[in-house]
């Protein structure tokens, strides 16, 4: 809520500074006095958690880059050197690798939060779109980061994903060679991925700045989905109310993170990535990191030609389409009601959507020709195809239609009224 600034510089220096560079005022208005709806639940703490994890990734990453060698003959050993010989390298490397996974857990919960409470609706469309941009940048960063240790999964994962570009008609091969910097994944690819992996987090940090800026114009949404009408009654200053609440959530999340970092540092990885990359030996199963599995399942679900589009290109388009559709989501959902609390029917379709996303992740980890739970004839491929259909139907059919058809429940008059129980 961009309103009147309540910052009052108290000392001579801050008055002098405030009339030249009002940076303290900016911080005060953004993170101290910022009016925040009083009814936010714990699903709203993941924004703060994500900010913490971006910092963890950047700091550990900068330290790792001091010791890492982006060379196809030395990269694998240099990562082992970090784990074995660099002081606390085992911890920093583990924090960085597991930090990526926890970053994605938090971003997925943050996104589902947005989907459930309608955080993408007017006037927060730009805020949502910037979030999708951050998510895309995160995926690119994580993908390139996974290549750097130069293990078998690093190499072959890079091979599979970059080969997808080759499915584009006419220009695919040329773009792929341009990305590789050669005729295969190799030294040039590794070196440029390292460079870009170092660059992108800072671009993410920049877009996060825009994301927060866009957040601070309309202010936070909230579980009721009704706007703050009276800042005094409906909202609380961000500090101390939400600094302490977010702080508690961050610490609890860090505890779960610590369990992985210190007690099972490799459980989220793949054993094959402890074998150095070997272009002459393909692993039995090439699986991406878990956070890409739903999209991997969508990619492999398209096994049929659609008109002039062959199956491979169709899969690539579906995979990218699954993310691209999020950009237009604010205009696909026709309902004026933000929160699913007041949308009894859509709520169920949302729950199925979450299950579909998890199910796609399950399919992505499995061999498409295996049977689901041993059920003869019911291949994972069919499950993935069904769930892919639902994934797209949720955005293209269910949300547009239900917004018109569904009769929402009555909403409280104001946040304060709802909180005090006399709605």
């Amino acid at each position, binding site marked *: 809520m961009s309103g009147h600034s309540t910052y009052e510089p108290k000392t001579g220096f801050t008055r002098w500074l405030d009339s030249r560079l009002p940076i303290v005022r900016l911080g005060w208005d953004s993170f101290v006095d910022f009016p925040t709806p009083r009814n936010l639940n714990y699903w709203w703490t993941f924004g703060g958690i994500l900010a913490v994890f971006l910092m963890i990734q950047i700091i550990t990453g900068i330290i790792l880059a001091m010791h890492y060698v982006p060379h196809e003959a030395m990269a694998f050993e240099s990562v*082992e050197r970090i784990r074995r010989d660099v002081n606390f390298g*085992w911890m920093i490397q583990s924090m960085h690798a597991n930090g990526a996974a926890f970053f994605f*857990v938090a971003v997925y919960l943050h996104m589902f939060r947005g989907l459930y409470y309608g955080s993408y609706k007017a006037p927060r469309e730009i805020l949502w779109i910037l979030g999708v941009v951050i998510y895309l940048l995160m995926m690119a960063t994580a993908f390139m980061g996974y290549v750097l240790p130069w293990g078998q999964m690093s190499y072959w994962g890079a091979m599979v994903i970059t080969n997808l570009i080759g499915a584009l008609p006419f220009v695919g091969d040329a773009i792929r060679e341009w990305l590789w910097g050669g005729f295969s994944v190799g030294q040039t690819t590794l070196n440029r991925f390292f460079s870009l992996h170092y660059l992108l987090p800072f671009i993410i940090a920049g877009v996060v700045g825009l994301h927060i800026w866009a957040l601070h114009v309309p202010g936070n949404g909230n579980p009721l989905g009704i706007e703050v009408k009276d800042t005094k009654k409906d909202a609380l200053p961000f500090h101390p109310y939400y600094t302490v*609440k977010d702080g508690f959530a961050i610490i609890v999340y860090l505890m779960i993170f610590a369990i992985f970092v210190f007690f099972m540092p490799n*459980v989220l990885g793949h*054993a094959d990535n402890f074998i150095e990359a070997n272009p002459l030996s393909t692993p039995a199963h090439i699986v991406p990191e878990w956070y890409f599995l739903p999209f991997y399942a969508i990619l492999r679900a398209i096994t049929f030609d659609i008109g002039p589009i062959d199956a491979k290109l169709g899969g690539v388009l579906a995979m990218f389409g699954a993310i691209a559709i999020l950009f237009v989501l604010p205009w696909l959902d026709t309902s004026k009601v933000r929160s699913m609390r007041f949308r009894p029917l859509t709520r169920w379709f949302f729950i199925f959507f979450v299950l579909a996303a998890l199910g796609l992740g399950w399919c992505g980890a499995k061999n498409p020709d295996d049977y689901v739970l041993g059920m003869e004839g019911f291949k994972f491929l069919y499950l993935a195809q069904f769930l892919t259909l639902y994934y797209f139907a949720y955005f293209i059919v269910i949300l547009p239609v239900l917004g018109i058809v569904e009769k929402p429940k009555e909403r409280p008059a104001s946040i304060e009224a709802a909180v005090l129980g006399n709605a």
Partner: protein
Amino acid sequence: MKMFRIIAAGLAALGLSATASALEGDAHAPHAHHWHHAGPFGTFDRHAVQRGLQVYQEVCASCHSLNLLSFRNLGERGGPLEDERWPNANDNLIVMQIAESYGERVWDRDEINDDGDPVSRLGIPADRFPAPFENEQIARGSNGGALPPDLSLIVKARSHGADYIYALLTGYEDAPHDAHLAPGQHYNAYFPGGAIAMAPPLSDGLLEYADGTEATLEQMAEDVTVFLAWASDPHMEARKQMGWMVLIYLFIFAILTYLAYRQVWANVKH
């Protein structure tokens, strides 16, 4: 508890990754073995690691390299020859003896003397375990075309880790009638495909343990697996110790923050 639901959701998402590692070949799944180093309090059994080092040196090392390990690692914190008399592992007399036991040899082809020749000298703790073969081609040539993998990370580089290594070493059996084994191959149900080029490496009484333990097949398999588990994760004990300190710290911090949260919000309806 809302917090509980959130944590549960997070764990469910992480659980997805478990399915990722559930992709297995058609080989037998190894049995879960009890390891002294397993679990959040697990430490390496120093004696087992020492015996495993002996098994590696006397048996495995004739074909398998251990490229990522230096002799000094043995004497470092958490290593099998860690000794408070020598806080710097490079001063550790036992480690020095082991390094010297390999005799005079060229340790590093890039170490050149003033005449331009590679230096031949006794090993020092900073040197790495020497590899049995000069390069991959020679290794394959000496092993019927198969490449004995480097063992530095072998426990981490196989799913089921230590359980798999132990199962493989003890899992040789007569080939079933329908198995197709090429000359020089052996049958091991735990190896993907069943046909493995490595001959059964261990047998009862193959060596005499320095500490007098009876060298049965199972004993040697277990010891060398523990040694390799240490080799692939030499900082495991420090990692777990630090983990407990971090968790206790965060736990107290969480309680204090929660109490602060309750106090700050005490008079606010929300």
